[in-house]
């Protein structure tokens, strides 16, 4: 599609821009495709004037890098507007129409709750309260037989919903996965009666079996819809005003991108786009660096996110969390823990040191940031130990004050009767061990051995703690990318167009069923192609087919990658399931009856795949000596990142400082810089 856009000068430059919004910064990653030059930038967010940071960023890119807005052929944006709407509970007032007798499905959810040892355990308050849920006396049976709502039932519910102030309606009826006709009929009636109410049906948002999962996905979509749509309209207007000819694209939770126009209605697809595009960016960097098996680690102020990349492939799940709510569409699988650079350390009444879950966040932030924080955080512990505080931070927007860090950690040291450095080291050890628990769970769920993996840290805090975590996990290698602060923006820049489609089949896998599977595939493929062309894509198309399958009697499915031609070959299908089951669960049952629950299809239109030339080898730049506490104070070399050219080699301990992060390199390691300026760290054992 890139070649088709108006405004691109084929003789001149061709810019592609990825943008990602975090809590404090908007990150820019810009690629000039002809030269392979990549520029990055961070701009402070402007909550009072959303979109203003976009203009600032584009202006700065023009000023520093010579970017011509008219030469921007691709603009991909990741935004947190959707997820913030949910976390802050500022979404639309929704009504839900469902079957009478089943109005509490949303509240009951799947019953099981986290924190199951607490007598005070409870579920989050639903986004649609019970008094906004209206039961219609209608029903579809599991075999598709139906009884429809009597005349006037929908009209009555519409009147009640309106009186209660609803802005939109979610229609979710039992067995709509099988046949959306009842939902469509109700939607049409609502639209005729109340054209001012927006309506989403559960079957149009994600037509999957399981009423709670399907309904809650539709609710999330409707809840964020007005705000997301408004934001995207403003964004497109802003881009046009800046003279950018490219259609705005959005990053999606599935690691792909879609047009902003699509995102106005398909809002649920972009809720986790930030974390997803970080993993996509990391996967792209890993390919460049020659790493196939990777644990990504993104540490911010309040949390750390982890994901696995196995044999070059990002992993997907369908029960990621959005705030307090599970999201049931395919999303890049990311685990999260509430420990970050801002996590606060404290001493309990038994003299045991703890880190988190409280966080100083970005305001007031760690004590050493000098923004009013007084309690010791993980970042302060790093500063006390001498890993931080030697150079400019966050593009000159932060002033490190190590004395404040020492004061804060000193308070705890006094309570414990220990030295300040010793206490700081203990804070770091505990923070690392909290992450260790989360990563161990992730790897055991996936059934992988992390000793075969490299760790890729990114985000502001990833490189600060990454090597220490790798050591704790027994991981032999760490790969730190050149621009750890803008990996999510980069992920958007290189991502593919990707739409996901699903048909619930729920039938035994047998020969008689194959024609039905083929029909479903054909419908899915048509849907996928239509979607891609609606995104403006006219290049090559890749259709990835998979089946959610299980043995009869199991209550959850596994996703099995399929080739379309196998839909005519029962043995091949059966084998594919057995093989996948054995890979994931270590066993299979050759005699077991197999059920196909869903057929799924991802329609992919390839995004830009810049092939960056490796840089020539140059000698390492100069370092200077700073004092770091590793057991005791000792001199450690500090390298400015810009001075580390391709081929540079050095040993740990060392510090690599750059304007968006600091890479702390423990003793017992050797480091080498590759042709793409990634730093590869190897632990000696």
């Amino acid at each position: 599609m890139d070649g088709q856009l108006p405004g691109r000068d084929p003789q001149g430059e061709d810019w592609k821009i990825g943008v990602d919004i975090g809590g404090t910064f908007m990150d820019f990653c810009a690629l000039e495709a002809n030269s392979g030059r990549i520029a990055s930038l961070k701009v402070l967010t402007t909550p009072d004037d959303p979109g203003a940071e976009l203009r600032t960023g584009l202006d700065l890119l023009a000023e520093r890098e010579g970017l011509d807005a008219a030469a921007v052929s691709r603009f991909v944006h990741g935004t947190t507007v959707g997820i913030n709407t949910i976390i802050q509970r500022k979404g639309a007032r929704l009504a839900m129409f469902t079957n009478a007798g089943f109005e509490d499905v949303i509240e009951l959810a799947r019953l099981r709750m986290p924190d199951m040892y607490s007598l005070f355990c409870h579920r989050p308050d639903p986004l649609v309260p019970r008094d906004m849920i209206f039961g219609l006396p209608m029903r579809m049976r599991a075999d598709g037989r139906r009884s429809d709502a009597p005349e006037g039932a929908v009209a009555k519910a519409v009147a009640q919903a309106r009186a209660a102030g609803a802005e939109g309606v979610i229609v979710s009826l039992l067995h709509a996965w099988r046949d959306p006709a009842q939902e469509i009929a109700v939607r049409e009636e609502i639209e005729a009666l109340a054209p001012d109410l927006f309506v989403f049906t559960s079957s149009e948002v994600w037509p999957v079996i399981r009423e709670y999962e399907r309904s809650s996905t539709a609710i999330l979509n409707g809840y964020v819809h007005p705000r997301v749509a408004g934001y995207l309209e403003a964004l497109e207007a802003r881009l046009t005003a800046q003279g950018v000819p490219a259609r705005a694209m959005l990053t999606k939770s599935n690691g792909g991108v879609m047009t902003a126009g699509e995102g106005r209605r398909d809002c649920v697809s972009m809720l986790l786009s930030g974390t997803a595009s970080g993993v996509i960016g990391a996967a792209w960097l890993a390919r460049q660096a020659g790493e196939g098996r990777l644990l990504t680690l993104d540490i911010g102020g309040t949390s750390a996110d982890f994901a696995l990349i196995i044999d070059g492939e990002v992993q997907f799940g369908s029960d990621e969390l959005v705030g307090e709510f599970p999201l049931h569409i395919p999303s890049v699988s990311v685990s999260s823990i509430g420990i970050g650079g801002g996590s606060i350390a404290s001493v309990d009444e038994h003299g045991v040191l703890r880190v988190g879950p409280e966080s100083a966040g970005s305001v007031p932030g760690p004590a050493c940031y000098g923004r009013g924080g007084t309690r010791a955080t993980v970042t302060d512990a790093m500063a006390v130990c001498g890993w931080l505080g030697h150079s400019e931070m966050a593009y000159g927007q932060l002033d490190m004050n190590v004395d404040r860090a020492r004061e804060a950690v000193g308070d705890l040291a006094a309570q414990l009767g220990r030295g300040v450095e010793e206490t700081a080291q203990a804070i770091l050890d505990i923070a690392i061990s909290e992450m260790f628990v989360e990563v161990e769970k992730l790897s055991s769920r996936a059934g992988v051995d992390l000793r075969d993996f490299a760790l890729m840290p990114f985000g502001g805090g990833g490189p600060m703690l990454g090597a220490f975590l790798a050591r704790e996990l027994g991981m032999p290698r760490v790969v730190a990318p050149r621009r750890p602060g803008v990996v999510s923006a980069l992920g958007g820049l290189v991502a593919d167009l990707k739409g996901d489609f699903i048909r619930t089949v729920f039938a035994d896998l047998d020969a008689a069923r194959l024609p039905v599977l083929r029909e479903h595939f054909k419908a899915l493929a048509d849907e996928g192609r239509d979607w891609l062309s609606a995104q403006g894509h006219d290049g090559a198309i890749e259709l990835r087919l998979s089946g959610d399958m299980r043995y009869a009697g199991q209550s959850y499915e596994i996703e099995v990658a399929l080739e379309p031609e196998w839909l005519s070959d029962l043995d091949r299908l059966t084998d594919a399931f057995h093989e996948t089951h054995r890979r994931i669960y270590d066993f299979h049952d050759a005699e077991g009856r197999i059920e196909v629950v869903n057929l799924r299809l991802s329609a992919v239109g390839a995004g830009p795949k810049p092939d960056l030339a490796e840089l020539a080898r140059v000698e390492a730049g100069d370092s200077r000596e700073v004092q770091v506490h590793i057991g005791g104070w000792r001199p450690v070399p500090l390298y400015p990142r810009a001075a580390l050219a391709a081929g540079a080699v050095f040993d740990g301990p060392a510090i690599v400082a750059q304007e968006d992060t600091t890479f702390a390199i423990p003793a017992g390691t050797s480091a080498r810089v590759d042709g793409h300026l990634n730093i590869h760290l190897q632990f000696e054992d």
Partner: protein
Amino acid sequence: MFDKMTLQVLANHARAAAENMAHTLHRTAHSAFVKETQDFTVMLMDRTGDTFAVPMELGATWYPGLTYGRAIDMVDDYRPGDVAFTNDPYSGHVATHAPDTHLWKPVFADDEIVAWTGGHIHNTDMGGAVPASLSRSLTEIHQEGLRFPPMKLVREGVFDEQIMQIMSTNVRKPALNIGDIKALVGALNTGERKVHAMIERFGKQGFVSGVAALKAQAEAQARAILSEIPDGDYVFADYADEDSDEANPCRLKLTLKIRGDEAILDFTGSDPQLASSLNVPSGGDPRHTILLVGVYYVLYTLNPRILLNTGLTQPFTCIAPEGTVLNPVAPAAVGMRSLTCARLRSVIFGAFVQAVPDRMPAAPAGNNCIVNVMTRDERSQRTVIAAVNPVVGGGGGMPHRDGTNGSGADAAYLKNTPIEITETEVPVEFVKYGLARDTGGAGRWRGGLATEMAFRVFTPDSRITARNRDRSFFRPWGTDGGRAAGLADMVVNPGTPDERRMGSKDTAILQPGDVLEVRSAGGGGRGNPAEREPWRVARDVARGYVSAEAAERDYGVILKDGAVDEAATKAARAAMPAPSEAFFHYGPEREGYEARWTDEAYDRLTEILAGLPIHWRFFTKTEIFRRLDGTGAAAVEAAFEATCARFPELPRPQAFAEAAE
């Protein structure tokens, strides 16, 4: 001595190892019991067999304080690669009913055992009289399936094929048992590897002293909690609706004695061991984990940062006299002990809520009913057996929040099955699945609502079992002015001329077109309902949680067009009778029952039965109940005399005999 400052690092490594084991088992197990119901546990144990780490996200909540020591000692000559096992509730007192199969594996360092990894799975079936090996009607352990006393299952990495063959021959679903057992062995191996990694990270001495420090830390945390609780004796009793097919109530009584940083849980006064499978085999262990599950909930609720391991059981001493329902002797049946355990938890909650009324909720619904259906699929002509859904009730009103609706408190580990999945797989049609109005106990903080489920069947003689049904007579209690909750119920064809109420029954046979409605109890209310803000009551009415009539009757809130009528409400509240001074509200059923069966009556009954040989006790209880006329101790005495007259063979209780001499 392990450095306390960084104890959290070791705690995290230990927990990571336990989580790792749990995920490995959950990922590789075969049966729905392990994969979906998550009826399993895994743990790391110190060299004596005391649990020092458990997972927090997967599995059941019962065993953080389990000690394997006695079972470990019943097997000799452990070698690296060995795994031992048992499922016998009467050997070693690790297993608590026959389906639960416990395994343990030594972890060696330098030729000595430094730790154990262990865990249990609930086998779908262990053979015996009934499918799934569980029925309340069974009366001796021999009917409840095959039992293995502690013995080696794996020798130096090789499974004992003879044991596997014996099991395969005797159980109904051998492939599931064997698949799950192998998955558990895999999890134990994972745990062993992780313990070795911890030894490498912390050193052998560091690991051993660190594990001791983890137990000491949990104990210190538990003692700190107990120290904050006022010293005193807190007495509480509660009842299961039926003790057996005889259908008399089963009473559990607790005297909780808080003394400084220690506590005694004296269960004297609880029923004799029962001629049903509701017995709880604690083996008389003063710190048996199965007696302390309610305590774990209390401690965790009072301090969510508490480490869950054997250390926290140390300040507690349980007294459960031999031959009683909480300490039966062989061959008493124990299969359905989970029903009794639910009541045991409410007794513990009821004692602690008196001690720390500001920090504990009212009673949770306390009936974790599992509904199974066996019917025929007319399309495939197959017999289908399927779990439909758990029907559990709400949590009790909390100090600053309403009870959780439809689940919560000590039932939060249960998961439901989507209606669309069940209807597609099983020929049943749901009529309703939701919350039941007016079932939460009224209170300043309302109790959580009950769950109500109704479904229709289409085939003759469809058999329904609703295991663990309870609370259809004795209500979950309210506290501190809050009211007791709505009762559980099971009704065939509700609201039709064919309506049949099933009382406390846990089975039903349905004919084509029949609808079965199962309702749980609700959670008890907390605090005076007249103090609940009227807007909350109005919102409850708008949401269908409370009817307008109940709003007026229970809360004194008058609504007009859905909005609070301030003046009328003020007047109605002024006219409400002052709340009773009693801390607990039990509801009319229990109040009526206890008018006859007073504390003194039960004290006399306990005294009489304790003096009899164990095998006479339940018989005598039943006969006394049959003959009781009047109230109080004298009536019990008279009923006992009448029983003795009818059965001259009945040995006179020791106290009588001594008096006679």
